[in-house]
């Protein structure tokens, strides 16, 4: 199923990507080709097949609740683009009005 320009724009919003109009046109074409290729999965009868989300089946991996040292605050903030008062600094999430 080919994607429309609106589809591409909607996905870009969901993915927090800013695309140029050239990128939109290119991705519209390339993603449509990949999705068309994926249509071949419809050749298979899979209604009763259970899904596999991981190669190994592990469930509820637990560990003992032992307190251990974690990374120092300075180490954690070392890579932060902006920080203040021992915290990551960002623009306001909610505006004041």
């Amino acid at each position: 199923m080919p994607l429309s320009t609106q589809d591409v724009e909607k996905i870009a919003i969901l993915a927090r990507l800013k695309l140029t109009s050239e990128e939109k046109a290119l991705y519209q074409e390339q993603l449509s080709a990949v999705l068309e290729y994926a249509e071949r999965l419809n050749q298979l009868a899979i209604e009763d097949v259970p899904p596999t989300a991981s190669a190994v089946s592990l469930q509820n991996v637990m560990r003992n609740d032992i307190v251990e040292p974690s990374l120092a605050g300075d180490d954690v903030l070392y890579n932060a683009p902006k920080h203040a008062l021992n915290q990551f600094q960002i623009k306001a999430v909610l505006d004041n009005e």
Partner: protein
Amino acid sequence: MELAFLTLTELRDALRRGDTTSVEVTQTMLDRIVNVDNDIKSYLSITDEMALEQAAAADARRASGEDKPLLGIPVAVKDIICTQGIETTAGSKILQGFVPPYDAFVVRQLKKAGAVILGKTNTDEFAMGSSTENSAYFTTRNPWNLERVPGGSSGGSAAAVAGCLAFGALGTDTGGSVRQPASFCNLVGLRPTYGRMSRWGVVAFASSLDQVGAFGRTVADCTAIFQVTAGYDRRDSTSINQPVPDYEAALDGSIAGLKVGVPEEYFIEGIQPEVEQAVRAAIDKLAELGAEIHRINLPHTQYALPVYYLIAPAEASANLARYDGVRYGPRVEGQDLLETYKETRALFGPEVKRRIMLGTYALSAGYYEAYYGKALKVRTLIKNDFLRAFEQVDVIAAPTSPTTAFKIGERIDDPLSMYLADIFTLPVNLSATCGLSVPCGFDEAGLPIGLQLIGNTLDEATILNVAYAYEQATGWHKQLAIGHSSLTELHS
């Protein structure tokens, strides 16, 4: 013979005998990198000072009577694996300048074994690619022919080892990213069973498919790296808590009576004829060495590619949501927080954006069942193909890649043709199997061909031993890119 051209295990013996020191060999490698890597471009960063310190420490430990499996041996690490105090970019501008505050589990294990880390190797951005052309920094060249790609995404690690710029290396393999470059560069590359090597500290691409792997010029070299990096890590909840066998001791070269399955689905139209001939000849050689050859079927092979290109981008779109310019990496400020996210995420390269878009779509409301949900079900069929096959045979033999190394620029504008480069390697990642590539000849242009051996869950020992038997009987691994190709003039 020059130090740089020794295999890892030959160097280990030389160090144990006292014929050389870690400082001497590390300096030799660093000099060689300066001389040769301008042409190959395998390393993104060289950690020369740190490497020489590690080498001096290794020599001191040896002088005090200590011995470790990799004591004093210089190796390389793919730049998607975190190294404490060393920039780790995953080949992306969005992680430029990121200096991890800790070592990945596998790097800790390398250091514990005494290895010297020469630097970080190039990769397609976030390991998304089959050629290193998607690296945000530069394209690595194949030491066998500088106009060709080294394969990818772990192409930097493969080119470094093939160019004798490291004695072994770590890579990661989400869809073939260790085996395919190993095949293109005449190396042994192992992708262990999911969970055999910890993913802790490895930048995540597709979490249900990612796995660390090892490169070596010989089976023994690859095994030596794998031996020390495999094992349980409580920090990775998908890590398998089972003892690590002595893989090196299991390399006895005896494969008499072993059942080798040959899946006809892997010899498809479009495969390069020389690749098919070389792989079929390799299978004949295994028969000569006493293996029983069985024709088998993996009927859902043709669906692995569409399944992979729905599951991997879906997982990637979730994993890469973390790159928002808040906690690490560069931030490009916009007028509000949302615009800051978008401006910052414009640092992703075209292939990464393409996969985030594809994955976001496959997971979005209304399409989840039609794409992602369906892919998970077909993944079950692919996994079951292997379960059935391993009831009949001990190991599966097939080509690693349908072609030898392609030209730089040849496929970069056509994502589907690039994705087809992984068609024979993806099924291992989708199932609970393990796989490796071992050199099995050359095409008419002198480019290496790889034989892929696929093993059952946690049965790395068997595929390594089959590869070892084959390698010892043929000797393709003895041919070096150096002195054979366009690198001749660089050999000084």
